[in-house]
C-alpha cells in the first residue's frame, strides 16, 4: 500500500477536484472499453493498495485479502463494458470490493484464520507508540505486536457492516458521503454505524486509551 500520506493525499485531492479525478478514471475506462486491455493496468496500479487495505482490515488475513483484491479487479475487468460512468470508478471498484468481502465473510463465518501483514517500521517511532511505551513501561517491539493483535481482534469483533464503516472512514480516510455511496446507505446510517462501532472499540481497547 502507498504511504498513509499518499492515501490521504489521493482522497484529499479527490475531494478538492473530484470531477477531474473522476474524468481521469473515466477516460481510462473508455480506453479499456474500446479494446485497449492494457489500459486497465493503470487502474490496477492506482487502486490496488487501497482495495487491499480495505479487504485486509476487513478480514485480518493477508492471503485472503490478496485473493479478494485480485478477484475484485477481475470482476471489474469482466464488467467494465457495462460500466456507464454514472458513478465514479473509485466508488464502483470499492463497492465491488466490499460486496466480494461481505460474501466471503458470510462463507467464512464459522472458521476464522488470522494472518497479519507486516507493520511498517515507521510505526515504532510514532508518537502514539512512544506514548504507549512510556505509559506501559513495556518494550517497544512487543508493544507494537501486542497492539496489532489487539486492534485486529477488536475489529473482528465488530459486525461486518460496522467494520466496513470504521475501516473506510478511520483507516482509509473516506468521507461519510463517499461511504454512503459505496455501501448504498444514507449518510445518517453511516454516522450512526460509525458512532456505535467506535463505542464498541473503546470498550475493547480501553487498556490503551486515555
Amino acid at each position, binding site marked *: *500500500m502507498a504511504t*498513509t500520506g499518499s*492515501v490521504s493525499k489521493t482522497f484529499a485531492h479527490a475531494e478538492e477536484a473530484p470531477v477531474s479525478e473522476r474524468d481521469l478514471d473515466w477516460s481510462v475506462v473508455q480506453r479499456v472499453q474500446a479494446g485497449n*486491455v492494457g489500459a*486497465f493496468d493503470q487502474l*490496477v496500479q492506482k487502486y*490496488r*493498495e487501497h482495495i*487491499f*487495505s480495505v479487504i*485486509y*482490515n476487513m478480514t485480518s488475513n*493477508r492471503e485472503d485479502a*490478496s485473493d479478494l*483484491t*485480485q478477484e475484485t*479487479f*477481475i470482476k471489474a*475487468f*469482466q464488467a467494465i463494458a457495462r460500466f456507464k460512468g454514472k458513478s465514479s470508478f473509485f466508488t464502483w471498484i470499492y463497492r465491488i470490493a466490499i460486496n466480494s468481502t461481505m460474501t466471503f465473510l458470510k462463507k467464512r463465518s464459522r472458521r476464522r484464520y488470522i494472518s*497479519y*501483514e*507486516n*507493520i*511498517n517500521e*515507521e*510505526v515504532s*517511532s*510514532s*508518537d*502514539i*507508540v512512544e*506514548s*504507549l511505551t512510556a505509559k506501559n513501561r513495556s518494550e517497544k517491539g512487543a508493544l507494537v505486536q501486542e*497492539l*496489532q493483535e489487539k*486492534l485486529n481482534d477488536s*475489529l473482528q469483533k465488530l459486525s461486518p457492516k460496522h467494520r466496513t464503516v*470504521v475501516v473506510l472512514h*478511520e*483507516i482509509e480516510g473516506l468521507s461519510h458521503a463517499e461511504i454512503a455511496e459505496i455501501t448504498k446507505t444514507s449518510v445518517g446510517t453511516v454516522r450512526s454505524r460509525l458512532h456505535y462501532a*467506535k463505542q464498541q*472499540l*473503546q470498550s475493547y*481497547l480501553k487498556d*490503551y*486509551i*486515555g
Partner: protein
Amino acid sequence: MAKLPKERQTEISVEDLLRLKRSERPSDQFWNEFDRELHQRMLQTLVKKDPWYLQVVRGFSGRILQSTAIAAAAAVVAMVVVRPAFQPTRAVHVAQASVPETVGAPVEVAVTELSLAEATSLPDYQTDVISAEETSSDVNFVRDFGMDSMQVASYDASAYSTDSPQARVSFASAGVASLVY
C-alpha cells in the same frame, strides 16, 4: 506517521489507534507477485470458456430458443387436436345427442334425468290404453279397489326377430312389450 498534537500527546483515542492500522503494508515483493498472478488470472478469464449455465442461457437466445418455440407450438396444436379424445365418452354422447352444436363443455347427466322427448323424438313403439274396467266381461265381478287406466307400449313382433319363439308367442297375443310408466 500517526503524529499526535502536542496538547494531546498524553491522550490516545480510538481514532489514533486505528490510524496505526495504516502502517500494516505489504512489501514490494508482495506487489510484484500480486501483479504477476493478477495478469495470469485476467488472461485466463479472456480465454476461459464460460460455465455451462451461461452457455445454456446464451443458447436459448439462439437456435435453442427457435427450436423450443417450434416444439411448444407443436405441443399446443397437438393438445387442441387430441384433447376431445380424452373427454368422458358417455358425457360426450349425451351432450351430442341433445345439443351437439352449442354445448361447449360436456356435463355429466344421469340417464334417469333425461325425459323421453329429449332421448329420442321418434319412438319405435305405439302406446295403448288398457283398463280393467273396460275389459271386464264378468257381470258378477265386484271390484273392492279403485283402478286407473294405464298406458302400455305395444309393438310389432316381426320387428324383433331376435326374441325367442316362446316369448314371441306369449307376448304377441297380448301385444305387450313392456310397461312404460
